C-alpha cells in the first residue's frame, strides 16, 4: 500500500474518531438535560396549578375592598363634604386625594387639610375618638395631636378682629375686680369702660 493511502486512511479514521467521541459526549449531555428538564417541568407544573386560582381570588378581594373603599368614601363625602373628604384622605394617605377627586368626577387641587382645619377634620377626629380604633392601646405614636393641630388651625383661622385668648372676650380671659373709688371707670355702657379697667 502506498504511503499516501495510509496517511489518508489515518486522517479519515481520526475524523471518524473525533465525530464518535464528541457526538457520544453530546448525546450524554442531552440526556442529562432531558432528565433535568423533566424535574423542572414537574415543579413548573406545580407552580401553574398553585397559581391558577390567584387571579380570581385577588380580583374578588379587590372587588370587596373597592366596595368598602367606595362605601367609606361615600360616608366621608356625606359627612365631611366633597372638598374636605378629598383633603382628609390626602392628609392621611399622601397622593390619594387626587384619586378621590377623580372618583368624585372632579379635578383641581386637593384641599390641604394640614393647613386648613375644617369641619371635615372635626368629623374625622370624632370618628377617631368614638371608633374602636380610638379606644385601642395607648402605647405607640399618637395618631393625631388634637391640641397642636387645633392650635395650628386656630392660628390660621383666627379672625383679625377677634380677641386673643387672654384678652377681654378671649377664652382664657379673667376680668379683674372692678375699681372702686375716684379712679373708677366712667360707668357701664361707655365704649371703653371694660377696656380701661383692664388697662
Amino acid at each position: 500500500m502506498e504511503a499516501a493511502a495510509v496517511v489518508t486512511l489515518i486522517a479519515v479514521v481520526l475524523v471518524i474518531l473525533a465525530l464518535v467521541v464528541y457526538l457520544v459526549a453530546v448525546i450524554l449531555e442531552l440526556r442529562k438535560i432531558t432528565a433535568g428538564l423533566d424535574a423542572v417541568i414537574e415543579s413548573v407544573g406545580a407552580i401553574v396549578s398553585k397559581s391558577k386560582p390567584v387571579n380570581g381570588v385577588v380580583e374578588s378581594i379587590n372587588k370587596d375592598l373597592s366596595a368598602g373603599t367606595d362605601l367609606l368614601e361615600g360616608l366621608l363625602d356625606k359627612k365631611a363634604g366633597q372638598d374636605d373628604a378629598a383633603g382628609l384622605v390626602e392628609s392621611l394617605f399622601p397622593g390619594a386625594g387626587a384619586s378621590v377627586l377623580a372618583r368624585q368626577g372632579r379635578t383641581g387641587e386637593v384641599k390641604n387639610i394640614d393647613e386648613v382645619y375644617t369641619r371635615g377634620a372635626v368629623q374625622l377626629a370624632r370618628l377617631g375618638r368614638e371608633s374602636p380604633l380610638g379606644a385601642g392601646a395607648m402605647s405607640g405614636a399618637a395618631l393625631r395631636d388634637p391640641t397642636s393641630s387645633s392650635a395650628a388651625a386656630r392660628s390660621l383661622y383666627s379672625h383679625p378682629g377677634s380677641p386673643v385668648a387672654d384678652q377681654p372676650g378671649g377664652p382664657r380671659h379673667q376680668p379683674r375686680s372692678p375699681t372702686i373709688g375716684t379712679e373708677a371707670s366712667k360707668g357701664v355702657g361707655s365704649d371703653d369702660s371694660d377696656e380701661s379697667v383692664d388697662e
Partner: protein
Amino acid sequence: MTLWWIGNVVLLLVIVPVVVILLRGVLDAAKKTSRAVDALRPVAEAASKDLDAVELLHTTQEQVSQTVAVVADYGGSLDTVLEDA
C-alpha cells in the same frame, strides 16, 4: 500522486481541526445548557414551595368579605350617629 499528498495535508491540517472545533463547540453548548438546567431545578422547586401560601388567599378572601360587611354595618351606624356637613 502529488495531488493526493496535497489532499492528505489539507485533510489533516484543515478538515480534522475544523471538525474537532465544531464538535467541541456543540459539546460546550450542551454542557452549558445542562448546567443551566441544573441551576433551574432548585429555583423552580423553591418557587413552587413559595406558592404554598396561595391556598391562604381563600381565607384572606373570606376575611375581607366579612370585614367589608362589618365596615358596611359600622358605616351605616356612623351615618346615623354623625351629622352631615
